[in-house]
């Protein structure tokens, strides 16, 4: 289903509430919010269209859906933008009141699509949603614009009827959210009920039939709906709990990374602090300062902001301080497409620093997994005393999905390296190393009898003093590389996500393309290898991939993982790229796999 309208129509709110109701009804779902870069783009224009796509159903859902079967369009622009994306024969609900001559012209329609045959291939329900809604809320004496703002709940009421959903949870949400504005609260609830009743009345029942979805087969447990930003915030707080340290999150506002900041502000009682810095550089530097002071320093941004943080990452590598850096990737280069998703910061994460400055890189594949990956990133940072980059993306930041709530007792405590008991100088003790992780103890100012100096100048491998000794620099460069390689001995072996262990085609993916690749692999019987660790790779990755004739790498960039695989494993994968700002469609992946098989024959 796709909901589309103007930025001011409350589409995102309506979509997320529908997602909640889907979850409560026991169906699986995945969502794809698709909103414009402008905060309030000009009304009625195609570039101002805000949309929310949700895929729901009985089987496991891993993507926001290829071709929506239901479209709700609040105005001609929403219809124009969405029509190419939906399935032929889909149900199209249009708001008649939005189809004024002015709006038709703004959307670039010469004639009315409702009448000129444009919608011949679809089941169309045209309703005067704005009008009906205003009628419904008339009794509250609201202004026209206030009353108009209830129309998303009117439309939501219609949808809830179509999908046979309870109104209760949404009503409870409105009650909570608008507790301080009783009139708006009551008007919205009235609109919700009126929309529901409208669906039920004879006027429409001939056209719309209720969609009754089978319940999804999901593993037993407690579930909730969660976005990537919520899961990552909880994961960072959980990491703090597992390490018994406070978490200091330092960031500068940027799309689409800001939701993480907002979520963490709500988790302060879990020992989380948030600092809004003056710029991206200050954000990472304050996080480094917090780590130096003994808290878990975390910073987050999107590609352009991460670029600004690069020099400071080198400092954290040199000074051997723990740090978690989250990158919510978006389309680029430069400012690029702030609200559209891409996976194009992989080079930046793995290679993008001056000098030999290796950093472990991880990537989350879905919203819920952001929780585990935040814990994993912190674990690596504290064990190896290194900055760690966690790649997420704009899609994950906002996409809600059902998540089986884990138990904290399933996670091991996060350990740091022990301080050696010796008569050595404080400097030597602070720079002693664990033999396996190659990490040093986390000695922080305030600890008695351990004063020492650290910094960005090359340091002596044993004392941390400034050292210009050539042999020492060779040693330290190798140490930094070995330290990141050492991560591989802790992360476990690469497993196959779906399909056989050997065969003609294996599809290799990373990050938020998990869903469509998983589905395409299942449909075609191809194997699927999904990478959560991108630097270093799991040590057996080469072996796993060697058992296939062809390796297909679909990516939402211009072929960056392909380069990485060629570089590290000396293999020749087939690249398949898409940078339209929209997720891969299962169909196009299936076609690609089949065509590759054709070539293989």
């Amino acid at each position, binding site marked *: 289903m796709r909901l589309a309208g103007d930025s001011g129509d409350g589409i995102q709110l309506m979509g997320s509430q529908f997602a909640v109701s889907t979850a*409560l009804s026991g169906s699986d779902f995945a969502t794809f919010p698709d909103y414009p870069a402008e905060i309030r783009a000009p009304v009625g224009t195609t570039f101002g269209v805000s949309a929310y796509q949700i895929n729901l159903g009985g089987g496991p859902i891993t993507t926001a859906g290829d071709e929506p079967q239901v479209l709700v369009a609040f105005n001609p622009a929403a219809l124009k933008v969405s029509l190419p994306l939906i399935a032929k024969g889909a149900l199209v609900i249009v708001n008649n009141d939005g189809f004024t001559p002015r709006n038709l012209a703004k959307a670039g329609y010469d004639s009315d699509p409702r009448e000129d045959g444009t919608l011949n291939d679809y089941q169309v329900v045209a309703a005067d949603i704005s009008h009906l809604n205003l009628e419904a809320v008339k009794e509250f004496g609201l202004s026209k614009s206030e009353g108009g703002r209830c129309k998303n709940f009117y439309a939501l009421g219609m949808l809830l009827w179509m999908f046979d959903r309870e109104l209760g949870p949404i009503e409870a949400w409105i009650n909570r959210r608008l507790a301080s504005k009783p009139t708006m609260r009551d008007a919205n609830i009235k609109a919700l009920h009126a929309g529901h009743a409208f669906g039920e009345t004879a006027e429409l029942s001939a056209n719309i039939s209720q969609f009754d979805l089978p319940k999804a087969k999901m593993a*037993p447990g407690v579930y909730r709906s969660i976005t990537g930003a919520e899961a990552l915030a909880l994961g960072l707080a959980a990491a703090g709990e597992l390490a018994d340290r406070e978490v200091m999150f330092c960031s500068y506002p940027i799309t689409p990374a800001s939701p993480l900041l907002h979520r963490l502000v709500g988790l302060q009682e879990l020992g989380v602090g948030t600092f809004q810095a003056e710029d991206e550089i200050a954000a990472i530097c304050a996080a480094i300062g917090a780590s130096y002071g003994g808290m878990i320093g975390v910073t987050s941004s999107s590609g352009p902001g991460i670029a600004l943080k690069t020099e400071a990452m080198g*400092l954290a590598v040199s000074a051997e301080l723990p740090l978690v850096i989250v990158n919510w990737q978006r389309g680029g280069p430069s400012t690029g497409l702030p609200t559209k998703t891409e996976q194009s910061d992989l080079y930046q994460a793995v290679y993008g620093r001056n000098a030999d400055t290796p950093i472990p890189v991880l990537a989350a594949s879905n919203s819920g997994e952001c929780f585990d990956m935040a814990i994993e990133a912190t674990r690596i940072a504290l064990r190896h005393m290194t900055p760690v980059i966690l790649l997420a993306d704009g899609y994950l930041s906002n996409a809600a999905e059902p998540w089986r709530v*884990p138990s904290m007792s399933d996670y091991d405590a996060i350990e740091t390296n022990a301080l050696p008991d010796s008569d050595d100088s404080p400097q030597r003790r602070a720079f002693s190393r664990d033999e396996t992780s190659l990490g040093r103890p986390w000695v922080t100012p*305030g600890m008695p009898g351990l004063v020492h100096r650290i910094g960005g*100048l090359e340091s002596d491998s044993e004392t941390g003093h400034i050292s210009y000794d050539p042999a020492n620099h060779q040693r330290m460069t190798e140490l930094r590389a070995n330290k990141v390689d050492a991560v591989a001995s802790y992360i476990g072996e690469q497993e196959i996500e779906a399909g056989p262990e050997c065969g003609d085609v294996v599809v290799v993916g990373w990050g938020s393309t998990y869903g469509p690749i998983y589905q395409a692999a299942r449909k075609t019987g191809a194997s699927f290898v999904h990478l959560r660790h991108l630097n270093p790779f799991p040590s057996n990755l080469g072996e796993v991939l060697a058992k296939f004739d062809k390796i297909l790498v679909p990516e939402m960039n211009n072929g960056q993982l392909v380069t990485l695989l060629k570089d590290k494993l000396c293999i020749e994968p087939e690249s398949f790229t898409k940078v339209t700002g929209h997720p891969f469609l299962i169909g196009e992946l299936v076609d690609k796999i089949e065509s590759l098989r054709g070539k293989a024959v």
Partner: protein
Amino acid sequence: MSTKLTAKDFATSQEVRWCPGCGDYAILRAVQTALADVGADPDKTAFISGIGCAARFPYYVDTYGFHTIHGRAPAIATGLKLANPELNVWVVTGDGDALSIGGNHVLHALRRNVGIKVLLFNNEIYGLTKGQYSPTSRVGTASPSSPTGSVESPVSPGQFAMGSGTHFFARGIDTDKKGMGDVLQQAHAFEGTAFVEIFQNCIVYNEDVFADFTDRKTAPDTQLHVKHGEPMLFGENNSKGIHFNQDTLALEVIDVTDAKDEVLVHDERNPTIARMLIDQKTPVALGVIYRQPAQSYEDAFYAKHPTQMKRRKSVADIIEGPSSWTVD
């Protein structure tokens, strides 16, 4: 601590590598002495620096120390102070580090009033990179990057600090032991950001640029050591004073022999007087020019934080969110 530490106890084994005769040596000694005098605990003291000649400082002070990257020391010190407000945190910076590449961080540290002591070693030149003009260099400074003389107006560290909302501004001269000792102790005692401009002689690239007022012989007539609540007197036998001319709305030098009442008494809380003192050329104002006590950033941060950064709840308490459902 049972035995009182001396300046020597704050020296490290590292060989100090500034040019012989550099003003930094005197500042290092003054800081080590001040640390001993205030009874600083080395375990709870940290020096954070950026890049430049001055930035080597942490390696020479036997406390915790972090030599970071160009311009960013105030941001790192802010994070450190948030993580552990108990620490005594000093930032050592230069004119390029603080007012060029790191200007933004100084501005924000000052307006937030983070509890750090910022020592700005102002030598009006880039020393470490071999003598280019800096943001505080005077117009006409000939340097490798401005052989015919620089054309940019210099920034005034004091005015920059005042404009950024500083709560403490003081000045000292590298070799003036007494003045430096006093200023450093006052800075140490201040709760928020204590911003101290130190006139530092770079004998290699900008020798004697401050000689017109640092020369000991002429010092009585060229230096004004201000003290809160005391009349602003200077010159041989305190024969001269600073007067506020109500017609021109400016400070002027007067002979005090028969005009003692006309001399302005220093009020360190008056920002207008502070601004005028900062701009005054002869005599140059030294000591604590401006001080406006206020809650430090970290105090405000912890006071606002619902649990003062403590973990009062477990993730397990809230992980299920506002609504959840069970699948059997």
